[in-house]
C-alpha cells in the first residue's frame, strides 16, 4: 500500500482515470469499441491515435527538461519535418495501362530519411547553442522557434503542400493488429528510450546533469556531449511527430503544423511528474501526461463548449501542477492547514 502511495506515477494515473471517468459519464458510448473495416473503432482508439505525436514530442522533451533545459522549438521542427516530407513525396496520379497508381516524387524511405535528418540537424543546432556557446536553453531554442516557421514556409513556398501518395498515409491513418500504427511508433520509441536510460548509465548521467551540471562535469560525466545528444534526440522525436501529423492530414502547412505543440509537450511532461528544475524524470509519466491532454481535449469537445476554452483549462492545470511542484507552496499550504487546525 505504501509503495503504491509513494509511486511517482500515482498522480498522473489518477488524473487520467478521473478524466476518463468524466468522459464516460458525459458520453455513454465512450468505452464502446467496435471492430470496423479491420480495426478497432471508438473514442478511446481515437484518443490514442491523436495522442501519438504528442507522446513522441513529450518523450524528447522529458530528456531535455531532465537536463535542466527546455526546447520551445519543437513546434517549428514538426512543421519543418512535415514540410520536407510532404514536398519530397508530393505524389501524382499516373495511369499506366489503364490502372491508376500514385507515384511519389522521391522514394518514400528517402523522403522520410531526409525529413528526419533535417529534424536531427535542427536539434543539433539547439544543442550546440546550449552546450557549446552557453546560451540559456529558452533563448537558444527561441531562435529556432522564430526562424523555424519561416524556414518551413520557405520549404513549402508559403503554401499548403498536399500529398497524393497512399503508402505515406499509413503512418498517421493506418492500423496494425487493429490498433493505430502511430501508437506503435510512439511505443517503440518509448521502449528503446526506456532500455537506454534504465539499462545503461545514460539515465543516471542525465539525472546528474539535471541535479547539478557542474558537479556532474567534475564527476566525469560528459555533460556537453550528452546535452547535445539530448537536444538532437528531441529534434528527432519532433521530426517523427511531424511525419505522423502530415501523414494524418495528408498535407503539410508550414505555418500551422505543430502550432503550440511546445506548450502541450511541456504540459505533458510536467503532468507526468518530471521536475521542471531538472533531475527527476519519468518517461512513462510523460506518455500518460500526453494521454491526459488528449483525453481532456476530447472531454471539452464532448461537453460542447468551444474548443478554444481548452486554453483556459490547460492554463489552470499548469498553474495547479507547478504550484504542487513548488516546495515553497507545499510548505505554505502545510503551515496554513497546521495553523488552522491548531486551535482545535
Amino acid at each position: 500500500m505504501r509503495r503504491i502511495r509513494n509511486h511517482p506515477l500515482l498522480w498522473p494515473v489518477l488524473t487520467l482515470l478521473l478524466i476518463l471517468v468524466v468522459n464516460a459519464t458525459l458520453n455513454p458510448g465512450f468505452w464502446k469499441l467496435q471492430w470496423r473495416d479491420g480495426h478497432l473503432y471508438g473514442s478511446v482508439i481515437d484518443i490514442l491515435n491523436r495522442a501519438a505525436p504528442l507522446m513522441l514530442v513529450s518523450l524528447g522533451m522529458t530528456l531535455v527538461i531532465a537536463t535542466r533545459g527546455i526546447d520551445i522549438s519543437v513546434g517549428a521542427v514538426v512543421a519543418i519535418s512535415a514540410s520536407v516530407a510532404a514536398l519530397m513525396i508530393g505524389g501524382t496520379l499516373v495511369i499506366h495501362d489503364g490502372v491508376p497508381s500514385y507515384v511519389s516524387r522521391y522514394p518514400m524511405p528517402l523522403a522520410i530519411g531526409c525529413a528526419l535528418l533535417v529534424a536531427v540537424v535542427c536539434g543539433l543546432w539547439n544543442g550546440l547553442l546550449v552546450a557549446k556557446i552557453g546560451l540559456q536553453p529558452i533563448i537558444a531554442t527561441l531562435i529556432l522557434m522564430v526562424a523555424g516557421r519561416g524556414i518551413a514556409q520557405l520549404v513549402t513556398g508559403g503554401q499548403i503542400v498536399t500529398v497524393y501518395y497512399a503508402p505515406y498515409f499509413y503512418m498517421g491513418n493506418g492500423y496494425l493488429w487493429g490498433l493505430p500504427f502511430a501508437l506503435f511508433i510512439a511505443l517503440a520509441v518509448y521502449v528503446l528510450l526506456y532500455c537506454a536510460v534504465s539499462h545503461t548509465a545514460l539515465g543516471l548521467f542525465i539525472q546528474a546533469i539535471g541535479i547539478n551540471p557542474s558537479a556532474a562535469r567534475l564527476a566525469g560525466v560528459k555533460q556537453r556531449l550528452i546535452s547535445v545528444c539530448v537536444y538532437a534526440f528531441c529534434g528527432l522525436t519532433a521530426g517523427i511527430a511531424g511525419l505522423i501529423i502530415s501523414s494524418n492530414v495528408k498535407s503539410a502547412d508550414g505555418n500551422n503544423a505543430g502550432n503550440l505543440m511546445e506548450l502541450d509537450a511541456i504540459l505533458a511532461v510536467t503532468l507526468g511528474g518530471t521536475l521542471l528544475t531538472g533531475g527527476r524524470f519519468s518517461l512513462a509519466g510523460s506518455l500518460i501526461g500526453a494521454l491526459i491532454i488528449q483525453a481532456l481535449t476530447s472531454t471539452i469537445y464532448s461537453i460542447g463548449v468551444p474548443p478554444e476554452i481548452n486554453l483556459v483549462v490547460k492554463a489552470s492545470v499548469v498553474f495547479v501542477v507547478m504550484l504542487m511542484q513548488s516546495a515553497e507552496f507545499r510548505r505554505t499550504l502545510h503551515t496554513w492547514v497546521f495553523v488552522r487546525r491548531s486551535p482545535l
Partner: protein
Amino acid sequence: MKWQSRYLPLAANMGLFSVMAVFGSVSYTGFFSVQAFLNLLIDNAFLVIVATGMTFVILTGGIDLSVGSVVALSTMVLAELVERQHWSIAFAIPVVLFMGIAFGALMGWLIQRFRLQPFIVTLAGMFLARGLCYLISIDSISITDPTYTDLAQMRISLGSDAAAVSLSAVLALLVLIAAVFVAHFTEFGRTVYAMGGNQHSATLMGLPVPRTMVLVYTLSGFCSALGGVVFTFYMLSGYGLHAVGLELDAIAAVVIGGTLLSGGIGYVAGTLFGVLTLGIIQSLIMFDGSLSSWWTRIVIGALLFVFCVLQRVFEARPQSG
C-alpha cells in the same frame, strides 16, 4: 575595457540600424524620408511599449512570455466594453490598464512567493490570457465608436512640412522617456539592475528585492495592456488572434537592443533601436518586393542568433546560474 563591453551590443545595434537605413535609402527611391522613419515608429508603437516593459523583466534576469496574449486580451476587453457594453472610453481604457496590472502582479507574485520559474508561469499566463479572449468572443469585434476612430486617426503635425505622428507614437515615446527615468533615477530602477547583476548581493545590500520582483512583472503587465490599447488604435478591432508571436518580437527587440539575457546590463533606449531595427527589416523586405513575408521571420531569427552569440563573446563576467 568594462565600458567597452557594456556599450558594445548597443553600439553594434545602432551601427546595424544605420547601415540598413543607408542601404535602403541608396537602393530604393522613397525609402529615405522623414515620414518613412516616423512611420517606423507609428507602425511599431505598440511593440515599443511592450518591449519597454519586457526590458525591465529581462534586466532582472527573468522573462515574460505572456505579453502577446495580454495585448490580445486587452484589445478584446476594450472592444467588448466599448462596442458591446457602450462604455465611455474614459472608463474602458483605465479598466483595461488595471486588468493588465492585476494580471502582471498575479504572475509576479507567483514567481516571487513560490519561487517558480518565470518562463513557466508566464507561459501558463500566455495560455490563460488567450483562452480568456475566446471566452469573450471567438470572432473579431471591430470598433466603430466615432470618438475612438477619431483618436486613432489623429495626426500630430511636426513643424511646417507634411511629417506627422499618431497619438500612439506619442504615447510610445512618453512611455520610453518615463522608462528611462525610472530605470536610471529611481530606487526601483537601481534595484532592477542590481537584481540582474546578482540577486543575493542585491538582497544583502538591503534592496527591496521581493517587492521589485513583483513590480517588474506588474510593470510588464501594464505595458502589455497599454500596448493592447495602442494596438486597437492601429487595428480598430479586438480579436483573440491579435499579436500572435508578439512576445518573440519583443524579446528579439530587447536582445537586439543590447540588453543581456542574463540580466543586469542593458538600456531602455537600446530597446527603441531594437524595435526600429525589426521595423526597418520589414520595410526593406517590403520595398524589395521579390522577397516573401516569411523572410522576415528568418532574418529576425538570424539576427537574434548573431546578437546572442555577440553577447556571449562580450560578456565580461562569468555566466550566473
